[in-house]
């Protein structure tokens, strides 16, 4: 019996490693290739480079518009996430505390956007008429709007769990709505707002469809479009393509490692309870 248990445990551990390797190997192949010479990278193999060539990264940085597009991605992700946190905190607070029919309707109306597909062709028309095509402000506002439904859903549930007695005590002490919100509610919301920020930051950073429709000048491109374009130009040079992929994945993986707790927490909220 004990031998059997031990064998099962070894088998399960081996299986877990096997499955992790299935996820890891594609990345390992790419990382190794990013250091190879052009000739050596012709065939994608899981072998160490004969000599590590760091030049590849320099070439990619210079020819891939990575500096400018890194800045664009950073600007869009940071600004829209900050704005989103601000807007969502306010709306989650009032919509979840105000028990009127109107606020309940508004809540459902807003979270309906979690599932509805965005219609990009008329969206372009709307953005054009607002003068927001090819503009940073336009992209930031668009991303904020896109993030509202899911972020509101997460934050709303969180506000509902803050006891209302707190509000009553604060009002007794002379707080009005805005003071109550800023002094009592916002500090309690910090962790969920960080979650909203991190999740939105990642999804904007990874966004490909919206910029594909809305941005048509190289100077405005985020990392995703720059990488896609780079691949189109250099698809025969796999060492460079690999280096490009590594460079653009790094910021996301760093954010993932730092914000892991918040990312997983945010993605599982709503799925666990019940």
């Amino acid at each position, binding site marked *: 019996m004990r031998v059997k248990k031990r064998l099962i*445990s070894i088998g399960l*551990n081996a299986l*877990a*490693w096997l499955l*992790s390797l299935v*996820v890891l190997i594609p990345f390992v*192949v*790419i990382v190794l290739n990013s250091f190879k010479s052009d000739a050596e990278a012709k065939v*994608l193999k899981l072998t160490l480079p004969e000599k590590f060539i760091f030049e590849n990264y320099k070439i990619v940085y210079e020819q891939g518009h990575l500096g400018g597009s890194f800045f664009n991605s950073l600007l869009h992700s940071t600004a829209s996430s900050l704005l989103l946190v601000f*807007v969502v905190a*306010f*709306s989650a*607070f*009032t*919509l979840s505390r*105000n*028990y*009127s029919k109107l*606020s309940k309707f*508004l809540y*459902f109306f807003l*979270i309906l956007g*979690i*599932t*509805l*597909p*965005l*219609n*990009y*062709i*008329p969206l372009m*028309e*709307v953005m054009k008429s607002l003068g927001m095509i090819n503009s940073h402000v336009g992209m930031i*506002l*668009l991303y904020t*709007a896109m993030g509202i*439904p899911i972020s509101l859903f997460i934050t709303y549930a969180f506000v*509902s769990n803050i006891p209302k007695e707190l*509000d009553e005590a604060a009002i007794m002490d002379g707080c*009005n709505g805005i003071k*109550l919100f800023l002094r009592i509610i916002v500090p309690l919301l910090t962790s969920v707002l960080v979650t909203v920020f991190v999740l939105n930051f990642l999804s904007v950073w*990874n966004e*490909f*469809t919206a910029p594909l*429709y809305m941005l048509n000048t190289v100077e405005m491109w985020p990392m*995703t479009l720059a*990488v*896609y374009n780079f691949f189109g130009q250099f698809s025969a040079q*796999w060492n460079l*393509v690999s280096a490009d*992929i590594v460079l*653009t994945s790094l910021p*996301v*993986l760093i954010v993932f490692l730092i914000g892991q707790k918040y990312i997983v927490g945010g*993605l599982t909220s*709503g*799925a*666990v*309870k*019940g």
Partner: protein
Amino acid sequence: MNVNKIYPWYFSSGAIVLYLLFIVAPALLGIYYSFTDWNSYSSEKNFIGLEHFRTILAGDPTYLLFIKNTVLFTLITSIAKTVLGLFLALLLVSGVKAANLHRMIIFSPQVLSFLIVGLVFKSLLDPNNGFVNVTLRSLGLDVLAQNWLGSLTWAMPSIMAVDTWKGMGYIMVLFIAGLLAIPRDYYEAASIDGAGFWQKLFRITIPMLMPTITIATVLNITYGLRVFDAVYVLTNGGPGNATDVINTAVYSSFAKGYWGIGSALSTILFVIMAIISFFIIRLMNRKVEY
């Protein structure tokens, strides 16, 4: 005290304005455009009624192929992600060592953009020098080497496999959270009654996980129906139209300047999603009240 004064609904006007402007207005405008012959060759938008919908649903069979591909993609990836996600979660809560490390590794593709994942696999699946075929050949399995993304038979299954590879970690994380919430006593009581592994799985674990399974299915379906990046980056709909889904077809009709019919395709997707959303929102509403 007057609730409306302390919690005025207009505190949420920022969110409402942005949402109306960028999400709702385009949606409504898109429905209107789908009844017009709007295209890049004339500046006029003439009302033509249901003609586009007739073309899509009964006229040109390629449009039905896009819809069929979308549904097939959604169905197969949803099932694959749910089954694999549950399997991985069960494995990682069964007491394997370094479970957190495994969890992080398997989840990690989820945080990368599909563009990156797509380019990685475009390289790995290259028919001549890609990692997959090179490895198969070096193992003497030449017969298994395929033109993964370029053949009519293999292109769609390859995209589905890559998408499942990327998305299964997210579903796994949901299931891990669900599994950890099941009280241990149930299993202990079942063990005393002499229940085996499979009995515990089907009598306790899966019934207790039903809420998580529901949410996972909802997420998989809504993601699957809206898929764009995965197909666009891996095959751009090819070979021919074999892997085109609704959203890639919308993009190509947009690029060709057929804005009316592109909008009509979007509207069909919108209607499908709206029906599904109705049920989803009811599900989520139930959850919030816990």
